[in-house]
């Protein structure tokens, strides 16, 4: 363990169930959940866009709720059930939102897409959004610089009709 005069780093144990698989890890206490997913579990589908909770690219589902994983220290989530984009398809079949995003061309570069889809899964589970305006408002934590917003709204509406 570090004893540097400046460093506050500690290594701590944490148990995370990610996409149904339990991981027992020892991580830097400063490590965000996002970095642990990307750097330690090789789950790079979750993206780092700003690392400040301002863009939503890192959105994952923690115990069913959508959360910015860059603002979450991994050690704070001991025992949590986490779903990332890699965990949405079941038995090789895409989640209805994943298919809807393809159908409606709801992405271009694809970098915000994991966060958009996870956020939309959370949105639908919350049950608050019924109209297009409500979807727009409640999806505004997920920036898409390619500007696919109209297609994202259309994709979510398609998935909502199916669910």
């Amino acid at each position: 363990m570090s004893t540097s005069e400046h460093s506050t780093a500690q290594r701590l144990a944490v148990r995370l169930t990610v996409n149904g698989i339990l991981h027992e890890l020892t991580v830097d206490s400063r490590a965000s959940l996002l970095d642990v997913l990307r750097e330690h579990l090789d789950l790079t589908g979750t993206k780092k866009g700003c690392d400040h909770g301002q863009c939503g690219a890192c959105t994952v589902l923690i115990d069913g709720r959508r959360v910015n994983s860059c603002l979450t220290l991994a050690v704070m989530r001991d025992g949590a059930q986490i779903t990332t984009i890699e965990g949405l398809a079941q038995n090789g079949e895409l989640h209805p939102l994943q298919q809807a995003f393809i159908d409606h061309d709801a992405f271009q570069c694809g970098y915000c897409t994991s966060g958009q889809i996870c956020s939309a899964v959370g949105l639908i589970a919350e049950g608050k959004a019924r109209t297009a305006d409500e979807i727009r408002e409640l999806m505004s934590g997920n920036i898409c610089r390619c500007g696919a917003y109209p297609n994202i709204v259309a994709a979510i509406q398609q998935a909502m009709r199916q669910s």
Partner: protein
Amino acid sequence: MASYIGTATSRVDGHAKVTGAAKYAAEFDAPDLVHASVVSSTITHGRIVHIDTSAALRVPGVIEVLTHEHRPHMADNDAGYHDDVAPDGTPFRPLYDDKVRFNGQPIAVVIAEESETARFAASLVRVEYAQEAHATDLERERDNTVALADDTFSLTPSKPRGNAEKALAAAAVRHDAEYRIAIEHHNPMEPYASTVIWQGGGKLTVHDKTQGVQNVQRYLCGVFEMPSDDIRVVSPFVGGAFGSGLRPQYNAVLAVLAALAVQRSVRLVLTRAQMYSLGYRPESIERVTLGADADGTLSAITHEAIAMTSRFEEFARKDTIWSGMLYTCPNTRYAHRLAPLDVNTPCDMRAPGAATGVYALECAMDELAVALGLDPLELRYRNYSDRDQLTGAPFTSKALRECYRRGAAAFGWEQRNPQPRTMRDGSELVGWGMATGIWEALDVSMAARVVLTANGHAEVSCATSDIGTGTYTIMSQVAADMLGLPLENVSARLGDSTLSHSPVEGGSWIASSVSNAIAATCAEVRAELLRLAQAIPGSPLAGAGPEGVVLAQGQIVSKADTRRGVTIADAMRLGGVDRIEREKTTDPRHDESHARNTHSAIFAEVKVDEQLGVVRVTRVVSAAAAGRILNTKTARSQILGSVVMGIGMALHEETVVDHRFGRIMNANFAEYHVPVNADVHDIEVIFVDEPDSIINPLGIKGIGEIGIVGVAAAIANAVYHATGKRVRNLPITLDKLQG
């Protein structure tokens, strides 16, 4: 024959993108990979007197700290740092010497076993500077400019037309105003990043975020004086770029430096704040004067642009040229000046020069229409030109009239009350505005490789990029059509410097260039298949010429009699080959006989809260004339995305510099506002038919940039129509409407 060109084909890389399988530059792994974190300068101009790295080096897990005084060898001449799209000047050399040229300049790199350690240790690097005076404020330096060199890129028209001053003096109606565009940053969602894989034996594979793998490859070989075979640059997926990735970025240099220093694989990811130390759309001041007869016939146009550049490179784009070519007008004059400032060099951002210059021109046209008491659309019709006014040449095609007509009809423009402040929706003022868009339709030399195997599968490849534009998809569509194969039998590869030649992906030139290269290569594959098929004894294709056959449904068949054919499998099997591999480089000719442009008409509705000044863009219709559309689904998305970026330009986006310190104050997504979902409402995209048999064999023009040109003007004009207040200074924030 099944055809994919022109259809709404879903992205072939869609599955990879919605499942998280698509790998971006920072997502490649290697054994023993270490992490690098960049230390950025906190002054704007001066010299580094001393860098104290001792505290950083004491942190357990830190391997090395690189500075200009302590780093592997780099080239000591400008040529080593030159890249394919560098402007004139002296290219920036990252970590080269003690000079600080702009705020946020990289000055040290910390390398550690884990990213948290690298980032923490970077905060411990102490720097002593000798500061020098700086200037970053374009407005203060506007009289301290240099004229744009009479250069090879034709960035501004070389000579005036007629006598604009005389015509202005004689004009029945005149308009003269200055328009300003703020600094904008591209802000792609993916931060710039490089993962350098240490291959051993001195060889490196660089996973880089770029719009030009071969440009980066050549550049890195120049910077590090390494043989071409030793560096491979790979970039299969790019998380947005919008022009920011045309030139190699300093992250690639620093990551390679780090790998060479520690002889291990390295990952280096810029922070969002550091993304603001890269290139950007330069702030510009654009003065447009218009003179017209009482009936609205234009008699004079002048356009003077002043834009910022760095002290070390002259970056400029064609801000003024559009004013010279778009409308019929006998008297024109242009000036384009640059203010060198203590900043990093600006770079291309979606429709560089046109997004800004046409904004100014199209707002000026709206103001002229008001002064004339004429409908703004009617003013465009009255000055419509079927020829490029700069050269007198006709266009290869120009369906702008049809854009105006169909856009206006879809929008309901005829319902517009011309008087400002007359249309309302409850407490909101409603405004309708329109503008014209124009961009270039260029073709560049490219080489496509096609490998057809006897099982009826083809791989098409080229070292181009797909930054979200849909290049993988259109490459697959074109190859499938040209080879007569189902789409699922075609795979596309790109983003690898070892593939066949491609210039950087920008300027809207890739779709047409790569498609025509694929078509040309497929023609050679077809000719070879014909040769094999005709070698079969009693061949049903005996006597047929290469233009007399097509590939369709896995067969090579006679055009004259489609019952006469040979399957691809038989031709190859009987010919004793299991693959046909061809690569062809195109050589597009840009003769002066025709102008090559895309055009658009944009109609925008805004609603403005009268009390608060909040502006919402509630409706946009964008009608584009862009030649043959390869994929109506992804093409629509390109225009949608451009309109959204245009909304940002009009209402939100502004990089704010504290000129006392020369430092950007809003280097984050919370304070640099890009449009979010709630900012975007109804957008209708119309592609008008524009057959073009002249521009290139497939009649393609490219649509990556035309969609943003004119959007800010249409919105600004709508804001005027709603409020009666003309804001000539983007972005139109509520303080400007209230003031």
